[in-house]
């Protein structure tokens, strides 16, 4: 994996400061994308906005995972566990007790969200004794155990999670007196905002913050230490990088991102419902789906993680929306090709194709399209 990741991020490492015009062009492209995302709610229907929110949930989670897997070189299949922990922490802190069936504190939603991020980061740190000692596939399988622990937690701690049969409702997110749910309408500059629009902007804001912070981390001293540890632990240590700290830090950061994605997940479903078996909202399949986003996007590439989320989490949404319009994939029951099944095939195939033909993932393809300049620099970088 390290080889794959090295190739994927060689540009960001060796050509950190591209020529000025390219940098401005790239910034302009990002700003244009942001502007597009800001005006989209005015044109899209609520169901499309809902689909978009789900993709943004995936984006936040996969940005976290790509830093861990691609930048720090630690394979993790534990993402689903941290999603569950983040979602549970938010729900327990922000929601009420519902007739004493569950524990709830009715605290400020923003505080609850931040707490969820802190709690998951700490849980990620608590895994350091394991993550620091293991490498590669051993770590991947070891982290899988967290998913099973999460499964047991969901089943047994029903005072916190609401239990596998009923689950519990998370309190809606509130900020500046605006409630992000169905109640009441908000009018800004004469444009009425419904629930889907508000949630869209909330999710967009969270995604942008997550994206910018991740870019900052990757381009800073922290990111360099992660890559150094990924490429060669012994030489990183020789150069004065604290290997244990870098590894634990990467795991904590990635878990914090997963925690936020977990909060977004429960808000999106409007229910926290732990899984009955290992295949569900917080199961192995979800861990694999997040890993798929990261691989398809190109290990270590933050932008690639966004595209990966678009494919892995977006495709089932878009397919099911189109299927009702066009009458495809509408079959249900035995032997039917459901949108989820079809998109699972697609991302499974995408993983295979990426590993076989383009280890840098979609990010590398994007780079090839956007700049011959980059490629020249990359060649320079590797021949040196």
């Amino acid at each position, binding site marked *: *994996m*390290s*080889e*794959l990741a090295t190739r994927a991020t060689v540009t960001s490492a060796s050509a950190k400061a591209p020529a000025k015009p390219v940098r401005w062009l790239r910034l302009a492209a990002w700003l244009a994308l942001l502007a597009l995302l800001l005006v989209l709610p005015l044109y899209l229907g609520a169901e499309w906005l809902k689909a978009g929110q789900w993709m943004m949930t995936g984006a936040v989670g996969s940005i976290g995972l790509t830093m861990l897997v691609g930048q720090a070189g630690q*394979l993790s299949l534990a993402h689903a566990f941290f999603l569950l922990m983040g979602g549970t922490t938010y729900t327990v802190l922000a929601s009420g007790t519902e007739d004493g069936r569950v524990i709830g504190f009715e605290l400020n939603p923003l505080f609850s969200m931040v707490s969820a991020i802190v709690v998951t980061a700490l849980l990620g740190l608590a895994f350091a*004794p*394991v993550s620091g*000692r*293991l*490498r*590669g*596939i*051993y770590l*991947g*399988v*070891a982290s*899988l*155990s967290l998913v*099973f*622990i999460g*499964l*047991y937690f969901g*089943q*047994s701690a029903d005072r916190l999670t609401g239990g596998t049969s009923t689950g519990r409702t998370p309190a809606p997110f509130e900020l500046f007196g605006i409630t992000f749910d169905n109640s009441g309408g908000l009018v800004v500059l004469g444009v009425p905002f419904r629930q889907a629009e508000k949630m869209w902007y909330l999710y967009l804001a969270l995604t942008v913050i997550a994206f910018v912070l991740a870019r900052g981390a990757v381009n800073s001293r922290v990111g360099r230490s992660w890559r150094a540890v990924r490429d060669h*632990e*012994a*030489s990183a240590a*020789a150069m004065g990088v604290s290997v244990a700290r870098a590894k634990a830090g990467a795991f904590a950061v990635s878990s914090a991102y997963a925690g936020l994605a977990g909060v977004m997940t429960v808000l999106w479903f409007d229910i926290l419902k732990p899984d009955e*078996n*290992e*295949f569900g909202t917080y199961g*192995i399949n979800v861990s*694999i789906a997040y*890993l*798929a986003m990261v*691989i398809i996007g190109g290990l270590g590439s933050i932008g690639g993680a966004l595209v990966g989320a678009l494919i892995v989490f977006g495709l089932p949404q878009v397919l099911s929306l189109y299927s009702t319009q066009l009458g495809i994939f509408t079959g249900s029951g*035995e*032997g*039917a*090709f459901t949108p989820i*099944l079809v998109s*699972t*095939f697609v*991302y*499974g*195939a*995408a*993983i*295979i194709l990426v*590993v*076989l033909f383009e*280890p840098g993932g979609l990010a590398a393809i994007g780079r090839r399209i956007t700049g011959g300049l980059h490629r020249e620099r990359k060649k320079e970088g590797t021949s040196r």
Partner: protein
Amino acid sequence: METFLQLVVNGLGKGAVYALLALGFVIIFKATEVINFAHGSLVLFGGYLVVVTRESLGWVGASLVGIAGAGLLAVVIERLLLSRSKLADPHSLALLTIGVDVIVVEELVRRLGVGIPFLGEAWDAKPIQVGGITLFRTHLVAMLVAAVLITAFYLAFKFSNWGVAMRAQAENREAAALMGIRSRGVTMTAWLVAGMLAGVAVLFLATQDFSGAGLSRGTHAIALAAFPAAILGGLDSTVGAVVGGLVVGLVEALSAQYISFDFSKSAVFLVMLLVLVIRPSGLFGTREITRV
């Protein structure tokens, strides 16, 4: 005491099946350094073939088809996909097998639909009473078959030409190739054997005695428990695979009884974590040494 003995017997019976699966991981890892995340889909594929063909071929014929089919699928995956990407390192190939697994499992689950057929017709759910202990036939047959197969593999590994070639390749790929060992053939047979072991294992997995459930997505999930078995034994140790399998079987049986059934799945993984923290390369695995 009787309960305890009963649990140990059950645990060892299940453990024998886990050992077969874990051995599959180990064989592939030794030959190619790839972790086969698609092992669960080989299990499911073997079982699916049994279900499809047993009407016309009978149970014995169908089982043979299932075992051969699982082995063949493993070879196809290796030849068609893994051998094509010469540049990719073992870790990325492991990720590739995740992609394969996702596709094969989803398609097989779609084909199986809602019916969850049981596979172990010849022995399923016919317990034998010995003293106060109930012996499940599935467990008995599994132990017997596992003992025979694992011994046969061990002997072949130690004494046959294939075993020598395999060990040479596990030791040093390039040097083995230079000595005239065909890495292609060794790799292919490793995948074939591992796949066939998965095909044998599924005959025990999808029975009433083992899981109480038939062939379904759940079978794939049970096969996942062989992961901790292979890892805690040490990925490159055949002895480790057997010990790991038995440990997983025992931990599962004992924790289901004395703690709770829900906890037994996590218990297996927790034991694996504990072993890994103490010995990062498993109980019998070779230690990785970093040279600077």
